[in-house]
């Protein structure tokens, strides 16, 4: 009985695996094959692989400039993001847990806001400082995009450093600078490294930010690939893409080689008593300075979004500060324009279908990975996570190439498949973590009480993973709803809302986008409030402590 079980569960990974292999691995392979064909064509097996595309890249100074530009800008943005996130996270992690968590939610708000909303905000603000359409603008936009990621990673790392560790350093005679230098900073090295590698890899793949904010001459690998695809120069585009994949994978390999997950563990990471955290912070120089940086970072993170809200209510067609009166005309403009409504409706449908497909595939895959003893789990996990690591521009190009041949481009199915591909790694991860933390003990208990395997799963585990399924569904929807890059390539016919916004921003200056952006942000707030309320009522039902500190 027990021996049969793992294999049967293991079969559940097959649908997800087939999906990833067909719509992700195979198209990417196509890109790699094209890069070795002198005409950029595709043939299985390649008739006579040549390196002409790569040689062309190396010999043309323009390509070298693109490569260098990409790396310099990525390194700069990464360095700035880590440098300002570090003191911010230091301050947040020394606050009482509850306040730290609240600030983290606030820091992640831009992350939940559509990338186009953020970029739109900068198109409104940066001209005021005279840096629009410059490399500086690109870097600012990238830092803005990277900060939530880096803050999340660094905060997660720093919050595990118990206050008692620093208190111990103080009782041993270390002043606040020595305690930071000898204890805190060494303990955050791995967090900084992980955050920096992640930020750098994301930076390499930036496409929309340089395209919208940057100077026309500021080509990055990603914008360059898009240009080449547009002029059907597949050979060069594929070679560039292959280089980008190779660099990304090498960075990831290098990063996981150097730091295992164990590095992030810190002894005594649990503070057992409320005493330490409830205590007022000592106002040492590091604390004061980091508090100032934190304030500035939060102004930087939130001010652009607030500006967008102001712009949306302005009666004029361009931004004037302070706004001249109050008007809802841009909201009316949205609802009276059939094009906007059509693209919004398409996005809703794509998003809802993505919820279904990504959550269903994610659930099956997660059960298969967590509840079976099939071999090669590590490899399978890596395959399922790969769409998160490979730069989106490449997924978009590869899938576009594939979808074109299947005549899926511009269809509802095409959008849903593309977005499911991007959402699947996240849903697998969320549901997998939930299954792992629930464990099999409760299911075993149900079975000793006479429940069949299916009953045990349905009556115990299914109920317990429902919240995680809901969360993964939300992630799937947001992933799809916000996704501009894959959709941009696929948009031969009807466009999704983000693509429509992107196109609109390229041609129009009317603040209709601000009205849409404001509505999008409001919906994010509403959804998160609803999630919070549902979670709270569920916890109440279970009689679990609400987690909001001591009585």
């Amino acid at each position, binding site marked *: 009985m027990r021996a049969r079980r793992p294999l049967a569960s293991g079969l559940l990974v097959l649908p997800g695996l087939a999906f990833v292999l067909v719509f992700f691995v195979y198209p990417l392979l196509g890109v790699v094959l094209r890069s070795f064909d002198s005409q950029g064509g595709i043939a299985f097996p390649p008739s006579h692989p040549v390196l002409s595309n790569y040689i062309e890249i190396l010999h043309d100074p323009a390509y070298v400039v693109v490569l260098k530009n990409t790396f310099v800008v990525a390194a700069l943005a990464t360095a700035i993001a880590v440098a300002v996130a570090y003191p911010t996270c230091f301050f947040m992690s020394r606050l009482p847990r509850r306040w730290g968590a609240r600030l983290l939610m606030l820091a992640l708000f831009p992350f939940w806001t559509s990338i186009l909303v953020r970029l739109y905000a900068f198109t409104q603000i940066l001209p005021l400082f005279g840096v629009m359409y410059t490399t500086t603008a690109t870097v600012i936009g990238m830092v803005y995009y990277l900060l939530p990621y880096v803050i999340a990673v660094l905060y997660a790392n720093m919050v595990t450093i*118990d206050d*008692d*560790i620093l*208190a*111990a*350093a*103080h*009782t*041993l*005679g*270390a*002043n606040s600078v*020595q305690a930071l230098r*000898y*204890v805190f900073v*060494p*303990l955050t090295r791995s967090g900084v490294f992980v955050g920096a590698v992640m930020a750098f890899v994301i930076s390499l793949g930036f496409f929309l930010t340089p395209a919208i904010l940057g100077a026309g001459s500021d080509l990055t690998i990603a914008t360059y690939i898009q240009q080449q695809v547009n002029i059907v120069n597949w050979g060069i585009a594929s070679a560039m893409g292959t280089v980008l994949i190779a660099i990304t994978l090498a960075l990831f390999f290098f990063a996981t080689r150097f730091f295992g997950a164990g590095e992030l*563990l*810190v*002894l*005594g990471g*649990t503070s*057992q*008593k409320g*005493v*330490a955290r*409830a*205590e*007022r912070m*000592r106002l040492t120089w590091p604390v004061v300075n980091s508090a100032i940086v934190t304030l500035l970072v939060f102004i930087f993170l939130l001010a652009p979004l607030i500006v967008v809200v102001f712009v949306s209510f302005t009666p004029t067609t361009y931004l004037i500060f302070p706004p001249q009166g109050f008007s809802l005309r841009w909201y009316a403009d949205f609802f009276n324009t059939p094009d906007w409504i059509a693209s919004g409706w398409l996005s809703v449908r794509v998003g809802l279908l993505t919820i279904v497909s990504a959550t269903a595939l994610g659930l099956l895959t997660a059960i298969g990975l967590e509840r079976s003893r099939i071999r090669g789990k590590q490899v399978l996990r890596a395959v399922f996570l790969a769409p998160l690591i490979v730069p989106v521009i490449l997924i978009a190009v590869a899938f576009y190439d594939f979808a074109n041949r299947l005549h899926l481009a511009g269809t509802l199915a095409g959008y849903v498949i593309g977005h499911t591909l991007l959402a699947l790694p996240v849903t697998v991860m969320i549901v997998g973590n939930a299954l792992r933390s629930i464990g099999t003990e409760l299911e075993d208990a149900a079975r000793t009480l006479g429940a069949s395997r299916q009953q045990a799963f349905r009556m115990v585990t299914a109920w317990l993973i429902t919240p995680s399924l809901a969360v993964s569904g939300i992630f799937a929807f947001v992933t799809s709803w916000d996704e501009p890059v894959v959709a941009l390539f696929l948009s031969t016919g009807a466009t999704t809302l983000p693509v429509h916004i992107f196109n609109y921003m390229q041609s129009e200056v009317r603040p209709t986008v601000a009205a849409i952006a404001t509505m999008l942000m409001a919906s994010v707030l509403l959804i998160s409030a609803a999630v919070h309320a549902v979670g709270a009522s569920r916890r109440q039902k279970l009689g679990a402590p609400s987690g909001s500190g001591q009585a």
Partner: protein
Amino acid sequence: MTRNKISSNTQAAAERTPSPADEDGRLWIESVSHTYGAAMVLKNVTMDIGSGEFLTLLGASGSGKTTLLRIVGGLVLPSAGRIRVGRRDITHLPPEKRDIGFVFQNYALFPHMTVCENVGFALKVRKVAAGQIASRVEDVLALVGLSGLGNRYPTQLSGGQQQRVALARAIVFRPRVLLLDEPLGALDRQLRQRLGLELRGLQRQSGITMVYVTHDQEEAFTMSTQVAVMKEGAILQVGAPQEIYRRPADLFVARFVGEVNTFDGKVEGKVAGGVLVRLPEGIVVEAVTGADLPIGAKARCVARPEHVLVGRGADALCPTLRARVQTVIFGGSWHRIELALQPSGRIVTVEGRGEPQGIVEGADVAITFDQGTIVAFPADAQEQQTVQA
């Protein structure tokens, strides 16, 4: 609140080598209060702990003992009151300027440093020369029995070894005062006892003033020269372990430091240092008391199980209570008998050494009490809750 002057006259203190500047290790806690939000966790605590004492703060969780310790260590700034060590007022000094050792409950070892680096940390930040650091670290590691493990990382050590590192790290810079926050709490019972004895030996030899926090009564008694029982942010009683045990200040202390049998009665007369109490079973017992118990007042008497004597009928001492043996438990070096008083049926527990001689379940016996061991408290005082151990 009365000032609790603590200076020991126990034998242990006499063994200690007197230091020339003995006042340096004296710790004064003066009218310290502390609030977290609306909750007052320390209420006007005053103590004067003599140099070289081993004082244990004993109390249930939430009694404020850890907060008091953290205030002394400088990790918490008190809402009111002063802390002095020797002649220095350290109330507003940051912890790094206090020269007070602190052993944390979960050790708070630096996970990225080896044992040597952990122990040498205090000397490194004091800019002691590297060579000297090495030799002092080696000495203190030898003292705690960790020679040869200097290059390990904390995660490579057992719980007991980690505890020793934490101790070594806290004493390497020769503080005059060492604070320990339930340092043995995470260890199993046997190891706890062994390390406790070692710590006691170390303290008696070095003459370092130690303040130790625990909720374990046995640990407090076996290690300390002085015990302070805390409840709800206040100190109920300070004294040598024997004093606390034999003459508890109130019913809470009596129950917190050991098991008691309680008897409610009425005061019938007075004797030097005590009262005569008539129990409902009819007999009159003599009880010591610190409280002012007028004749006619209700009194609650407590007697510890080992102070209850069991005889067989007529050969028992007077005055006696009649009881029937319900349960006899043999525990090796000790035994324990549960008796039901006749005719009330109330349960009395008796404990004794060795085997219970000739006492069998169901037998009728007579019981009485060791002279001078019963303590009486006013019964109309608020009924104290039983303590969670």
